[in-house]
């Protein structure tokens, strides 16, 4: 096991840090060596990327707090405009080392202001001798802000002429960030996914106080055996582990098995976990419902999941409109005459053609069609006469708001609007019945 070593920080802190970040020792030691000592200037910007829940945010946060490095931690999703983001950084900066709660609201609209205010804040808080870390989580959101934000953050050290390092955390690679106009290249660092062994180790680390670590580790082993195929998200796995642990303990609590009786416990929990994979994991039923079920000892079959309620009740003409829209979306225009006109002739050939075309059309997805074609098909598939009343037209619009149809193109509504049918064949079949 690589021990963390760095001359600048006390060994006890490092040891503590090491225990907090299992399986990320090499990344932490790499970061530490980039950071250097407190007063040393570090690399201006560091870009860390890795898949969901590979510990980027967690590692950064624990690293900075355990070693008590001055830092600002901002989530870019939460501060969705550049103004909010900059103001949040400044206000955190004010409160981070001054200790006083009283923070006057800062107003900062542009980056220019930010640099000025930043310099002031750093100067007033005696932070000059330490490196300040600004961590921007979910940094991919920066791309959607003004064009100057991302390049400016990357070279903030140079712009402010202060000892500051910006750390960007993201799930996507640096290549997707690089702006067209070019920018300062940050130091990029990759956090690899946790392997199954890592997951096992991390998950078994915090076991419930009532049970032994080995017992819990065995449980985690079974859990990973079931879920590793579909889910490698540490957060999700931990959630699932907590949800189902009560069930696992049941035989032990009842006294039917002891903690070592792994086989018996496995037999008890395995079908349960499989059911959990089909329901809770997919959010078909909620975790609180799942817990209640477990508690009452009921069968999960009683509770219908979200996807069980697929049937949508629609008014009579809405059904026909939707069917007409489906036909218009998936049938080519030239076949309309054959399908919907009374005297079309050549039936045999048509059938053959239809079969041939259908597969390819379904693979291609829905095609847009004009309103008039929709109405023409509607008139031909409804038995009795349909008056083109406002009710029919408003139904088309309400189908659009229900997202069963969608408008194509933003052109003027007078200009012959075009629609697309967005529902599946199964849905249409259910409606047509």
């Amino acid at each position: 096991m690589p021990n963390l070593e760095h001359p600048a920080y006390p060994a006890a802190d490092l040891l503590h840090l090491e225990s907090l970040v299992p399986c990320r020792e090499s990344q932490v030691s790499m970061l530490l060596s980039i950071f250097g000592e407190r007063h040393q200037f570090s690399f201006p910007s560091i870009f860390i990327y890795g898949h969901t829940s590979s510990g980027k945010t967690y590692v950064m946060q624990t690293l900075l707090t355990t070693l008590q490095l001055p830092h600002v931690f901002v989530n870019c999703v939460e501060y969705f405009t550049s103004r909010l983001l900059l103001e949040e950084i400044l206000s955190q900066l004010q409160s981070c080392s001054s200790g006083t709660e009283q923070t006057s609201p800062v107003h900062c609209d542009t980056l220019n202001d930010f640099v000025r205010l930043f310099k002031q804040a750093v100067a007033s808080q005696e932070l000059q001798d330490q490196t300040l870390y600004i961590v921007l989580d979910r940094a991919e959101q920066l791309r959607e802000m003004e064009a100057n934000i991302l390049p400016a953050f990357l070279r903030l050290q140079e712009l402010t002429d202060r000892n500051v390092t910006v750390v960007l955390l993201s799930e996507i690679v640096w290549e997707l960030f690089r702006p067209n106009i070019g920018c300062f290249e940050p130091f990029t660092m990759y956090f690899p996914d946790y392997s199954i062994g890592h997951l096992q180790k991390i998950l078994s680390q915090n076991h419930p106080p009532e049970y032994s670590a080995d017992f819990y580790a065995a449980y985690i082993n079974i859990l990973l055996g079931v879920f590793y195929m579909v889910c490698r998200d540490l957060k999700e796995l931990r959630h699932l582990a907590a949800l189902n642990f009560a069930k696992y303990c049941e035989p032990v609590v009842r006294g039917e098995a002891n903690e070592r009786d792994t086989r018996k416990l496995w037999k008890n929990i395995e079908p349960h976990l499989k059911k959990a994979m089909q329901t809770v994991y997919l959010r078909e039923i909620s975790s609180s419902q799942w817990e209640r079920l477990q508690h009452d000892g009921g069968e999960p079959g009683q509770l219908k999941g979200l996807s069980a309620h697929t049937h949508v009740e629609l008014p009579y003409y809405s059904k026909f409109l939707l069917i007409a829209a489906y036909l218009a979306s998936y049938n080519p225009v030239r076949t309309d005459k054959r399908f919907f006109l009374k005297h079309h002739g050549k039936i045999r050939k048509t059938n053959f053609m239809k079969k041939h075309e259908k597969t390819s059309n379904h693979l291609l997805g829905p095609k847009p069609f004009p309103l008039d074609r929709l109405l023409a098909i509607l008139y031909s598939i409804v038995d009795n006469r349909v008056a083109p009343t406002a009710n029919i037209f408003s139904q088309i619009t309400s189908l659009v708001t229900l997202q069963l149809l969608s408008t194509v193109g933003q052109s003027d509504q007078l200009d012959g609007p075009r629609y697309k049918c967005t529902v599946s064949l199964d849905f249409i079949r259910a409606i047509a019945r």
Partner: protein
Amino acid sequence: GCFVFKPSSKKRRWSEKTAHDFRSASSDSEDTELRFVTCQSLWNQIKSETEQIQEDLNKQLLDNLMSFLSRSHSNFQEKTAEWTCRMKFREIPTAALVLGVNVTDHDLTFRGLSDVLQDNITPYVALLEAKDCSGIKNLMQKLMGQLMNCDIDVDSLEDEDCVQVSPNRIRCSMPSLISWYDSATKKTDSGTPSKKRNSSSRHWQSPPVVVIFKDIESFTTKVLQDFIVISSQHIHELPLVLIFGIATSPMIIHRLLPHSVSSLLCIELFQSLSCKEHLSTIIDKLLLTSQFPFKLGEKVLQVLINIFLYHDFSVKNFIKGFQLCIVEHFYSQPLSVLCCHLVDIKKRVYSLSHDQCENIRRLLSFRRYVEKQESGKQIELLTNDSALKGETEKLLEDLHVYHENYISILRCLHVFTSSLPKYPLGKQIRELHCACLENRVWETEEYESSLQLARMLNKTDLVTMLQQCVGILVSSSGKEFDKTVEKLKEFLTQFQKLEEASQERDVSVSSQKELQKKTDLYHLQKTLLELKESRKSKKLTKFEMLRFEVVDYIDSLVRKYLVPADDRTLHEIVYFNTAAVLRGHLNAAPRTALHTALNNPYWYLKNQALKCDGGGISNKAPDICIVYKLHLECGRLINLVDWLEAFSTVVMAAEEPVADAASSDQVDDIIHARFIRAVSELELLGFIKPSKQKTDHVARLTWGGC
């Protein structure tokens, strides 16, 4: 909740104006005031009744939601240090509320929901609509505005100055929301004793913040995702609960949100009553009751139900249509003064003017009635006003009794027809009601076939149906049913006896079988053949006889009580039957109207000069009509030059019958200008648009001509 939301002052003005309208439009001005007042009071009664019904219908759903909400953050204050709580991911409690496609009705449900929430659970409720939330910024702005305003509303008297922050000033971010929440909850804690009691009795210490997304389908994916991600990070500080209003199916959640986001939610499903059941209840409580004097005729009811079933599924619109019927009836029928409760009838009948009496005499149903009377009475009814009034009162009371009986017997008949295979008379009572209103139901084929089927019912079904009928008749307000109930009970006892008898017979049959077993095969065959013979020729069993009797009795009840309303005298007073008016108001046909206006301008303009038109194009018609008619003859692309020439020919035709050959190829400037104006008007109406394919052509946007 209620339907018409108008500020009270505005409404008063509106109603005064309507009263005036009532007066000015109708010919006899005496009763208009009274008619208007009657109409208003009737509508108010109906309105409060519907509100009550809807409250009752939603109660179950709201109760479920309440318990969900109170459960959702029960462990928020406790801050349990338990292992499972620490390990578990804190999900945002979310209620997926499936409301059905009748979006217009949702408003009502949501309003009721937020009222109940504010009364029982939390003052912090925000209602968000997709049209206000195009970006996450707008969403946050809207949310904070609503939440902070509601706080001001709660304690507006005491400390306005410290909460008064304009929504533009505060930063729209989660931390400011959290700090607001902290200060708001803390304030209620440390408030004055009286206030504290008040707040703690209704809400808890830290009430959840409920955010309702009215129409989840219309929200953009990104906004929703961002909001959920942000709020899940602060769920420990801000007890948030989301409610998604879903119109289609809960699958939409999975379509809108990727797994990484939906895993932040703890979704529970709630389903509201289907709108069809809702409508059935409304019809049951509003139409199939003698509580309200006003009735809908068959055609009108059919129009309303058709709009509901074919177009919108909206109960709100149904009730609006019903309201329109009431207003229209009281507006157009002068005799509707008499459409009032039974207690008022006498007074109103005797205060009728002579004109009104003449109106009564003019009623078709009354004329039929008079013709049936003997000549002496005929003369009296037609000449003596007071005799007429006496007769009218009696007839109206008869009509009332008829309604009471009608409804009870209708329900009894429905008990029978709703359990028959294939439902020849319809499954719902509304279908049966329509059938009975339309014409004599016993003359229809469906009725015949349902009687046939009823004659084949088995005993247990029959007995339960009879019991149900007895229940209906006993609880009904009609006075004539004592005998009927007796008769039905008699049937029931007979069935009971029959059962006992059959049990005895079963015993005897089995003994007979014992005997048969001992004989040889030949004899057995013989006896079986005999048995078969006897069964063929045998008369109906007692049960079958009784069954026929029951069915015949029901049939007689139907013939007696379910007479269509059109056959009753004075039905015009309480029945609204002009479906055409209603259809015109509710089933607007813009294309048809436009076509009529352009094709036959006389229809709207009523100018005699335009009338003569047969199929040709009159030059007296407005320019746009001429242009429109000409364009109907063209294909998809219209050549402007040809069109102009045709136009000028038509226009010139009358002005100078013998046109100059020389000037004919040069079009007059004025005509040219008129043509251009007419064409651009057509373009504005959306019939044509400039085409990119050919410069001097325009494209037709409507079809039908070619």
